[in-house]
């Protein structure tokens, strides 16, 4: 099957007086039509920068340095600003981190939809608009009357559903969701993710889910990419990543998650994530890696396919996936 989205060597730097912050470096992955693809990483790993870059929403001092973002055969980075504006929402849409706080407090829910639709050249009569908005709200499990409410009259979960409905209003082929449920209660988190699942089935989009919560991502996506210090360190099918993580960082990350099995098993990862202004030489994880060898300090490991569909960037992982 041909991928709907191919990201190749995506590199984004933030240019600061102290030098470039290498937020995203050489990120390559592809997503298939209707696939759920997860990117998991801790704060500062560059995962949100990837989300913004996919929609070309990086603002100065940030800049996409190089790479390709090929959506349905066309490279978004080759577009001019006007084409990109038309493509956004219509072909690729974003549910941003804290999206629910981005609703304009003095505009009713309906106005948010009108703005989005009109901005993309959807010209209809008032009644037609109302019909479309009601359908969109229904898709995310909200009543049509919600259209006439102001954001402050909605709960956090409802606001997040409105944001999802806005993002799917033009039925994009790819939906990027960056921490769509952080700051929501667990029960509401589940409800919002269920909504996202139902919506995805209906419009048949591929979803890129970005977050820090390995549990939530693992329960939702088909494949996981693990990001550390601006690079992908491991990519593979969810079940395989969870049961047999190959990269030492993935292993440590999974081991640090609190479970409902053994109690008192708290294993943090020693040390701190590296500065992206001065990333360590060699593998960025080597200062915290329990199994690092001399080669890791000098030579940066490349992301290689060590077995079918499993990609790992680690010198210690041999072909076939043994360490």
């Amino acid at each position: 099957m041909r991928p709907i989205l191919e990201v190749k060597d995506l590199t984004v730097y933030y240019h600061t007086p102290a030098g470039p912050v290498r937020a995203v470096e050489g990120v390559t992955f592809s997503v298939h039509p209707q696939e759920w693809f997860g990117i998991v990483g801790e704060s500062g790993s560059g995962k949100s920068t990837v989300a913004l870059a996919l929609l070309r929403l990086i603002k100065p001092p940030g800049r996409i340095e190089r790479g390709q973002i090929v959506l349905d055969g066309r490279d978004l980075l080759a577009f001019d600003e006007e084409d990109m504006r038309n493509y956004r929402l219509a072909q690729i849409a974003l549910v941003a981190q804290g999206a629910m706080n981005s609703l304009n407090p003095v505009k009713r829910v309906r106005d948010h939809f009108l703005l989005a639709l009109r901005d993309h050249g959807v010209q209809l009569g008032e009644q037609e608009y109302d019909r479309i908005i009601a359908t969109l709200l229904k898709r995310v499990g909200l009543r049509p009357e919600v259209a006439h409410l102001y954001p402050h009259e909605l709960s956090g979960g409802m606001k997040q559903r409105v944001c999802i409905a806005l993002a799917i209003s033009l039925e994009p082929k790819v939906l990027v969701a960056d921490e769509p449920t952080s700051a929501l209660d667990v029960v509401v988190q589940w409800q919002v993710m269920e909504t996202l699942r139902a919506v995805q089935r209906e419009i048949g989009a591929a979803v890129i889910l970005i977050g820090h919560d390995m549990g939530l991502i693992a329960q939702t996506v088909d494949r996981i990419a693990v990001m550390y210090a601006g690079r992908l360190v491991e990519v593979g099918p969810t079940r395989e990543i969870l049961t047999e993580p190959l990269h030492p960082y993935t292993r440590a990350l999974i081991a640090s998650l609190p479970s409902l099995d053994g109690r008192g098993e708290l294993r943090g990862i020693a040390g701190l994530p590296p500065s992206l202004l001065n990333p360590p030489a060699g593998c960025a994880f080597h200062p915290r890696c329990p199994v690092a060898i001399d080669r890791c300090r000098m030579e940066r490991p490349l992301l290689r396919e060590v077995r079918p569909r499993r990609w790992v960037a680690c010198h210690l992982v041999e072909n076939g996936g043994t360490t």
Partner: protein
Amino acid sequence: MSLLEARRVRKVFGGGLWHRSQVVALEDFSIAFDEASPSFIAVVGESGSGKTTLARLLLGLLQPTSGDVCYRGTSLRLLHRQGRRRFLQEVQAVFQDPYEVYNPFYKVDHVLELPIRNFRLAGDRRTARALMEQALVEVGLRVEETLGRYPHQLSGGQRQRLMIARALLLRPKVLIADEPVSMVDASLRATILGSLLSLHREHGVSVLYITHDLTTAYQVSHDIVVLYRGVVVEAGRVESVVREPAHPYTRLLVGSIPLPRPDRPWLGERALGQPAGLRPVGPRFCKFVDRCPFALPICQEESPPLFQLSPDRAVACFLYREQPVVTNDDLTVVLRNRAGTGAEAPN
């Protein structure tokens, strides 16, 4: 006499002339911390459950509408200078956001120097420095990487551990930790919770761990109190509450945790089933009735008392109405049944 005790505290916000709608943030809550048998209790609830109100009441930052919070037998409102000073030293707090407590113009040393000076913990500079270094080492911070720096030069996890070090410096008897790790990454969360755990085990500090996260509560605490809209719905030993939740709301909470395990599907509301569709009638009712698939007519018109399931377990749900009723004051007794083994390492 308990070191710190909340007796049937109730907190109502709003009301009065200008704010007509009243919100009951916390209903009849009782808990006690003993000096002789330190406890590690988690209070778990979603937003609006009253868990932060509880923390603020116990710290004397809020006045209860009714009921009382007592420190060594004296109501916080009636503490005199000496007693208040001792309270401020023995009952410490760690809050959610480790950014807000720092003054960006001072080096981080300041947060440690201040309590040493205020409580005259050290006679001279050398002793003061030694105390600071000891506290840092105890929370796993390297002295040379911490002292002499400004708050922005430390990571969120370091700042949060520094707050625990500060609390430690005062050798408190009770630590109230309100969402101490909710803004910290997974890999650091374990380290910080580990610091809290060793504080309890090695220094005999009672910890009240307030959180929305059932998994970390399960990992570190011995006892758990589950709050829903200001009411205790379930309390007891953490293993049994989390593994065999009795209250439908606790079941919903446990089922809503996305676990990174392919063999444990994320059921969410499916773990519980469709609500029975009952609505409250009258002013008293179970707060969970509208969402509960097992709701009975009695749940619409009575608020359930706590029923005792076992010596160390209580649940506020009419499904268990065959069991003996415990009064809210006895919630303390339920938890105290565990307190003797409080310093034990969890297996």
